[in-house]
C-alpha cells in the first residue's frame, strides 16, 4: 500500500509488557511514535523478571535492549527498575477490552483494574505492608514464599508502587489507617478509557502450562517437584532462599536433581513443542552444576532441541560439565514419603526398565496460549484468527501480521518462542505497525522527558539548592534532618537548603523551580529516595537534568541503618556534600548530533536481503542492494513449497517485481564491498566489480554514501564427503531431492532412506543446521504424497521439529514415515553392493536380537547443513566479529539479535545463522526496521554524558580508539589527535581510563568531579 493512501492514527497500542512488548514499544518510540504499553500486571517484564540469568552465558542483559535515547545517568537504569521513555505511556494493570474502527483508526477501550493504591501518592514506604495481617503465597517467587495482601509485585521498588491483591484483601482497613500519604482506597472503581491508535501489536505472551493437567508428575502434591520457573526462583538471589538451592521439603541442598522435559508439550492435547524448554533446562542444569559441582544432574528428554545459534555448543559444554542425558519420556513420578525423594521409572542402558531416585525433580513446563486470545479472536472485537493450537494465526510470508489489518503480533503470541526470536518478531512488528501511525514531534534536545534545555549561564558560578525530603518519617526518624540542613547550608556553593515532608508530591515538585529562581539557585540536589530518581523526576522539574543530582537518602542511608542514626546522619552528610561537589564542577551538557544519510545498503541477494530492502524502502528511504551474484533470489529459487504449503515462487516473483519497479531501490550485481569507512549515519562504501571489465581495464569501482547497512548474505549447502556422496548416484542431498520432486523426475523409487545431521553437530561443524529436519519432513511428506506406498525412513539424532513444526512431525508419522534414531558414535553404514545401496543402522530405541536395521533403499538422501561463506574479509572490512562457526556476531545474543556491535550495521538471514523461511523473513523485517529506525530521526543525537578529547594533551597514541567498544573514537589524521563521534559514544568512560596523558575525559562526570567527590566523602 502506498504511504500516502494509508490512514494513520496518533499512536500505537502494544498489548502485553513482556520482553517482546517492551522491545516493540522501544522500537516504535525510537521511530518517533507515541506508544501505549498496557499489561494486566502491575509491573513490566513478563516472565523475564522471574529469571536472573539466561543462556548462553548465564547472564542478565535486559538493559541492553534499552536504546540510548538520552544518555545521561538520570534516565538510565536497570530495566527491572522500570521503563522510562518520553514517547511511551505505560498502562499497568490494564487490559484490552474492546475495539472499533479499522487499521489506521482504531478506538480501543482499555480497562484498568481498580487501583487501591494511588501511584501518584504512594511513596513506597511499605508501612501498609508491615501492618497488613493477611499472608498469601507470593507469585513473584512462584508461591515459594509468602507476601502480604498489599505488596510490591517485584523487589525493584522504583518501578512500582504498592498494589492490592483483591482476592486476598480482607478490607480490614489497617493499611488505610496507617498510610501516611492517604494513598489507599479500599473501594476504588476500576476505570476504562478510550484511546485512539492507528495500529495494535499483540505481545500477550504465553501462560505457563498448568501442571494440574499433568498430575502424574505430582507437582503440587510432592513438595520436591518443582517447575522450571520455581527452580529459577530458588536459584535467584532475589528468591525465597536468596539463591541457595534448598529443596522445599527439608530445606537441604539436594544431591541429585532430575529434569523432565516436554511437560505439557508434545503430547496428544498440545501437539507442539514449546521451543525454549530444552535450552532453559540446559541453562538451569548448568547453573546448578556451577553452584554445586557435586550435585548430580540428569535430564530426561525425548529430543534435545538445540537448533539455535550456539545451542549445540552449549549442549556439548553441558555434557562436558558432567550433566547426564537420558532419552526417555518419564511416565510417572512417585514420592518416597519417608524422605521426600522422588522415584521415577526410566529406561536403563540396556533398555530395561529401571527405578531411579532423585532428591529433587524439575518439570520443564511448556508454553500454552494466553486465554486472552479467545477475547481477541472474538469476531465482535479484533476478530483475529487463531491456529489449531490456539495461538494467533500468521502466514509464512507475513509472520508478524494477524488476519486483521493493522493488528500485528510478536513474541510467543503466535507460537512458542524464546527470547531471541521474540525480540526479532517485536522489531519486525514494530516496523509494520509504524506505517499506521504518525510520528510525534521529536524534541530538539534529543527527547528526554526532563525539562527544557539549559537556561542558565552554565559558566556562572554554581549556586546550589539542597532539598531534603523527610519522606514522612521514613528518613527523618533515622537521620537528623536539622543537622543535615545546617551542614548543607555550610557547604561552599549552596545558596539555600530546605526540608519538605514529601518532596515527590505534586505541589512540592511544582515549587522547586520557582523557589530556585527566587534564591538565584542554578543547580539542585534532591536528597530523597530511589523511586524519586527513576519515577518522579522525569516530567516534573523544569531543569536540565545535568544540573540535578539525586541523593538516595532513603534506600541508601536511612533504611539500611535503622539501628544506627548517628552513622546514618554522618553518611547522609557526606553523600550530600559529594553531590554538591559534583554539581559545582558540572560542565555544560552539549547535545551534538550527526546528520544522517537517508539511505541504506543491503548486502546479499537472497530472500532475507530482498525482504530487508523492501522493508526499508517501505519507509521511504533509498536502498542499494549489493550482491556478488548476478541475480536476486538466492536459495529460495530452488524452493517450491514449504511445510505449511506456501507458494514460494509466487512470493519471490512478487518481491522481485516490487524491488525492480521501485525507482528508489538500486541493484548492483556482481559487485563486492571493498571498503567501508565512517560510522552510523554516514558510511562511505566503495564497491568493486567481481567481473573484470571486458575492455581489460581495472575492475570498475563505485562508491555509495549510506546511513545504515544490513548484512543479509546467504550460505551454501555443505557438499558432504560421507556416505558415498559423489561416488554413487543414488546418494543425493535434500536440495537435490527437492529439485527432483519439483521437476517430477524422481523416477520409480519405492524406498528412500534419509540421514540427518550429515556434517553438522560434529567436531567440524558443532552447530545444528536448524532447517534440515524441516526439509526432510517436507520431502518425506512429498514422496508419500506422490506414492503412498513408498517406504521412507528417516535416520535422525534429534528431530528438530521445534515449535509448531511438531505437528508436521506427527503428520509424517501418521503418513507412515518411519523415524529411526541413530547414535552419533555409530553412524549409519552405507555400502554399495551389486548396484544396490545397503544401509545398516544400529537401532537404539528397542531391544532386538542383533540390534541392527538393514535397508536397501533406492535413494539415500543426506540432510546437510548450510555453511556460511567465508566472511572473514568482509568482517574485517566492517570491523565486525564472526562466531566460531563463521556467522556474524550480534551485539547481544538475546536482546539485540539483529544489531551489530558497530552502530548502524544490522544482520539477518543466513549471515546471522541458519533459519527457516518464515524466521528469515521476520529477521529481515526486523533488521530493515532497525536500519530504517536510526534514519527516522534524520540525525543521530548524542547523549549528555559523552567523552571528549583535550586536543592539547592528546598524543595521538590511539589507545582509546582501540578500547572503545562502540567505535566512537577515531583518529583525526590531519590534526594528529583523536576525536570523538559523540553520537556513537555511550558514555561508559572506559576511554578515559585508558588515556595515558589525561586527554580523554567524560563530560558529565569528569576526573575533577570524581576527585572532589572523593575529598568531600572523607
Amino acid at each position: 500500500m502506498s504511504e500516502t493512501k494509508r490512514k494513520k492514527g496518533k499512536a500505537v497500542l502494544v498489548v502485553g509488557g513482556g520482553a517482546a512488548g517492551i522491545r516493540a514499544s522501544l522500537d516504535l518510540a525510537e521511530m518517533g511514535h507515541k506508544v501505549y504499553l498496557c499489561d494486566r500486571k502491575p509491573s513490566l517484564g513478563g516472565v523475564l523478571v522471574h529469571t536472573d540469568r539466561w543462556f548462553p552465558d548465564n547472564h542478565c542483559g535486559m538493559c541492553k535492549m534499552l536504546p540510548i535515547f538520552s544518555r545521561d545517568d538520570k534516565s538510565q537504569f536497570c530495566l527491572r527498575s522500570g521503563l522510562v521513555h518520553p514517547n511511551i505511556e505505560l498502562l499497568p494493570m490494564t487490559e484490552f477490552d474492546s475495539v472499533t474502527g479499522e487499521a489506521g483508526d482504531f478506538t480501543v477501550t482499555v480497562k484498568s483494574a481498580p487501583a487501591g493504591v494511588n501511584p501518584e501518592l504512594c511513596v513506597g514506604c511499605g508501612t501498609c505492608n508491615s501492618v497488613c495481617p493477611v499472608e498469601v503465597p507470593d507469585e513473584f517467587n512462584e508461591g515459594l514464599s509468602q507476601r502480604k495482601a498489599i505488596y510490591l509485585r517485584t523487589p525493584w521498588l522504583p518501578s512500582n508502587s504498592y498494589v492490592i491483591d483483591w482476592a486476598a484483601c480482607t478490607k480490614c482497613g489497617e493499611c488505610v489507617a496507617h498510610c501516611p500519604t492517604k494513598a489507599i482506597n479500599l473501594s476504588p472503581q476500576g476505570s476504562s478509557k478510550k484511546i485512539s491508535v492507528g495500529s495494535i501489536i499483540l505481545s500477550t505472551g504465553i501462560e505457563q502450562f498448568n501442571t494440574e493437567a499433568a498430575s502424574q508428575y505430582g507437582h503440587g502434591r510432592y513438595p520436591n517437584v518443582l517447575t522450571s520457573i520455581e527452580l529459577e526462583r530458588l536459584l535467584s538471589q532475589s528468591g525465597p532462599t536468596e539463591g541457595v538451592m534448598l529443596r522445599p521439603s527439608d530445606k537441604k541442598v539436594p544431591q541429585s536433581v532430575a529434569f523432565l522435559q516436554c511437560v505439557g508439550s508434545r503430547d496428544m492435547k498440545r501437539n507442539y513443542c514449546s521451543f525454549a524448554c530444552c535450552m532453559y533446562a540446559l541453562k538451569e542444569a548448568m547453573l546448578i552444576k556451577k553452584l554445586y559441582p557435586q550435585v548430580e544432574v540428569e535430564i530426561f528428554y525425548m529430543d534435545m532441541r538445540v537448533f539455535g545459534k550456539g545451542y549445540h555448543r552449549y549442549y556439548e559444554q553441558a555434557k562436558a560439565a558432567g550433566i547426564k542425558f537420558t532419552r526417555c519420556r518419564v511416565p510417572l513420578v512417585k514420592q518416597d514419603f519417608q524422605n521426600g525423594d522422588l522415584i521415577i521409572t526410566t529406561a536403563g542402558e540396556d533398555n530395561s526398565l529401571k527405578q531411579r531416585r532423585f532428591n529433587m525433580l524439575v518439570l520443564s513446563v511448556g508454553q500454552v496460549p494466553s486465554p486472552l486470545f479467545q477475547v481477541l479472536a472474538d469476531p465482535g472485537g479484533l476478530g483475529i484468527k487463531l491456529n489449531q493450537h490456539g495461538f494467533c494465526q500468521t502466514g509464512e510470508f507475513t509472520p508478524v501480521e494477524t488476519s486483521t489489518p493493522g493488528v500485528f503480533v510478536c513474541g510467543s503470541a503466535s507460537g512458542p518462542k524464546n527470547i531471541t526470536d521474540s525480540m526479532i518478531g517485536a522489531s519486525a512488528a514494530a516496523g509494520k505497525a509504524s506505517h499506521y501511525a504518525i510520528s510525534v514531534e521529536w524534541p530538539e534536545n534529543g527527547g528526554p522527558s526532563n525539562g527544557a534545555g539549559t537556561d542558565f549561564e552554565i559558566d556562572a558560578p554554581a549556586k546550589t539548592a539542597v532539598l531534603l525530603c523527610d519522606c514522612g518519617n521514613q528518613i527523618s526518624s533515622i537521620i537528623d534532618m536539622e543537622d543535615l540542613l545546617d551542614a548543607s547550608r555550610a557547604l561552599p556553593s549552596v545558596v539555600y537548603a530546605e526540608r519538605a515532608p514529601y518532596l515527590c508530591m505534586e505541589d512540592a515538585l511544582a515549587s522547586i523551580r520557582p523557589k530556585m529562581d527566587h534564591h538565584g539557585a542554578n543547580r539542585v540536589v534532591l536528597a530523597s529516595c530511589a523511586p524519586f530518581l527513576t519515577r518522579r523526576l522525569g516530567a516534573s522539574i523544569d531543569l536540565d537534568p545535568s544540573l540535578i543530582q539525586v541523593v538516595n537518602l532513603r534506600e541508601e542511608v536511612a533504611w539500611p541503618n535503622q539501628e544506627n542514626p548517628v552513622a546514618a546522619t554522618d553518611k547522609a552528610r557526606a553523600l550530600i556534600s559529594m553531590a554538591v561537589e559534583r554539581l559545582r564542577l558540572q560542565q555544560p551538557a552539549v547535545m551534538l548530533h550527526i546528520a544522517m544519510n537517508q539511505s541504506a545498503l543491503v548486502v546479499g541477494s537472497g530472500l532475507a536481503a530482498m525482504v530487508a530492502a523492501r522493508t526499508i524502502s517501505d519507509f521511504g528511504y533509498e536502498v542499494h542492494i549489493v550482491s556478488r551474484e548476478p541475480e536476486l533470489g538466492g536459495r529460495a529459487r530452488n524452493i517450491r513449497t514449504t511445510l505449511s504449503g506456501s507458494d514460494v515462487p509466487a512470493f519471490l516473483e512478487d518481491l522481485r517485481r516490487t524491488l525492480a519497479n521501485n525507482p528508489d531501490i538500486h541493484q548492483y550485481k556482481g559487485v563486492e564491498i571493498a571498503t567501508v569507512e565512517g560510522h552510523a549515519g554516514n558510511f562511505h562504501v566503495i564497491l568493486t566489480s567481481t567481473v573484470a571489465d571486458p575492455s581489460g581495464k581495472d575492475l570498475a569501482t563505485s562508491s555509495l554514501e549510506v546511513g545504515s547497512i544490513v548484512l543479509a548474505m546467504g550460505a551454501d549447502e555443505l557438499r558432504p564427503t560421507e556416505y558415498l556422496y559423489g561416488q554413487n548416484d543414488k546418494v543425493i542431498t535434500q536440495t537435490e531431492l527437492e529439485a527432483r520432486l519439483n521437476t517430477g523426475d524422481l523416477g520409480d523409487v519405492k524406498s528412500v532412506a534419509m540421514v540427518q545431521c550429515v556434517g553438522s553437530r560434529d567436531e567440524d561443524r558443532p552447530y545444528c543446521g536448524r532447517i534440515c529436519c524441516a526439509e526432510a519432513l517436507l520431502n518425506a511428506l512429498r514422496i508419500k504424497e506422490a506414492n503412498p506406498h513408498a517406504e521412507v525412513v528417516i535416520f535422525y539424532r534429534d528431530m528438530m521439529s521445534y515449535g509448531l513444526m511438531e505437528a508436521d512431525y506427527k503428520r509424517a508419522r501418521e503418513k507412515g514415515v518411519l523415524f529411526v534414531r541413530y547414535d552419533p558414535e555409530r553412524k549409519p553404514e552405507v555400502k554399495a553392493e551389486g548396484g544396490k545401496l545397503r544401509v545398516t543402522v544400529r537401532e537404539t530405541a528397542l531391544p532386538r536380537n542383533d540390534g541392527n536395521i538393514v535397508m536397501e533403499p533406492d535413494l539415500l538422501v543426506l540432510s546437510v547443513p548450510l555453511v556460511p561463506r567465508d566472511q572473514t574479509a568482509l568482517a574485517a572490512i566492517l570491523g565486525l566479529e564472526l562466531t566460531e562457526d563463521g556467522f556474524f556476531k550480534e551485539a547481544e545474543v538475546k536482546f539485540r539479535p539483529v544489531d551489530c556491535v558497530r552502530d548502524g550495521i544490522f544482520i539477518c538471514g543466513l549471515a546471522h545463522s541458519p533459519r527457516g523461511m518464515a524466521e528469515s523473513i521476520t529477521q529481515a523485517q526486523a533488521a530493515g526496521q532497525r536500519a530504517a529506525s536510526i534514519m527516522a530521526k534524520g540525525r543521530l543525537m548524542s547523549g549528555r554524558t559523552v567523552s571528549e578529547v583535550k586536543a592539547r594533551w592528546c598524543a595521538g597514541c590511539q589507545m582509546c580508539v582501540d578500547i572503545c567498544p562502540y567505535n566512537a573514537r577515531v583518529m583525526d589524521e590531519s590534526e594528529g589527535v583523536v576525536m570523538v563521534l559523540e553520537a556513537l559514544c555511550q558514555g561508559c568512560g572506559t576511554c578515559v581510563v585508558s588515556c595515558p596523558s589525561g586527554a580523554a575525559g567524560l563530560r558529565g562526570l569528569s576526573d575533577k568531579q570524581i576527585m572532589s567527590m572523593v575529598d568531600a566523602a572523607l
Partner: protein
Amino acid sequence: MSDNDNKEFEPTIIGYFCNWCTYAAADVAGSSRLQYPHNVRAIRVMCSGSVDPLYVLRALFSGADGVLIAGCRPGDCHYISGNYKERRRILVLKTILETLGMESDRVWLRWVGASESPKFAATMNEVTAAIKKLGPNPIGNAWAI
C-alpha cells in the same frame, strides 16, 4: 578525625558502583530493609570500567581506609566488557601497590548483579569487616605531614 580510643574503629570506604547492576542491587537491598554497615560512601559511575586506578589511588592517598569497586557480573556489563577491563586494571594496580609496599587489600573489586541484593549487603559486610581488621589507612596520615 576524633576517634575515641575505646570506640571501635569505623573505616571510611569509597565505593565506585556501576549504575546498571550494583546500584540497582543497592536500591533493592535498601528497600528490602537489609541492614548493612554504613561505611561505604558510594559514587555512582556508569560502568565499573570507567573507574580509573587513579581514582582508587586518590581515595587512598586522601585517607580513605578502603576502596570498593563494584560492577555487573562478568559478561553482564552494559557496555560489553567494561568490568573485564576493570578487573585487569585492578589486578595490575594491586601488584603495583604491593611493589610500593602499600596494602593492596584495601582495594576491593566485587561483582553484584541487579537481582543480588543479599550479595550486596553481604559484600558491604565483608569489605567493612576486612578493612576494620586492617585498621586505619596509614597513608592518609603520612600524607598529612
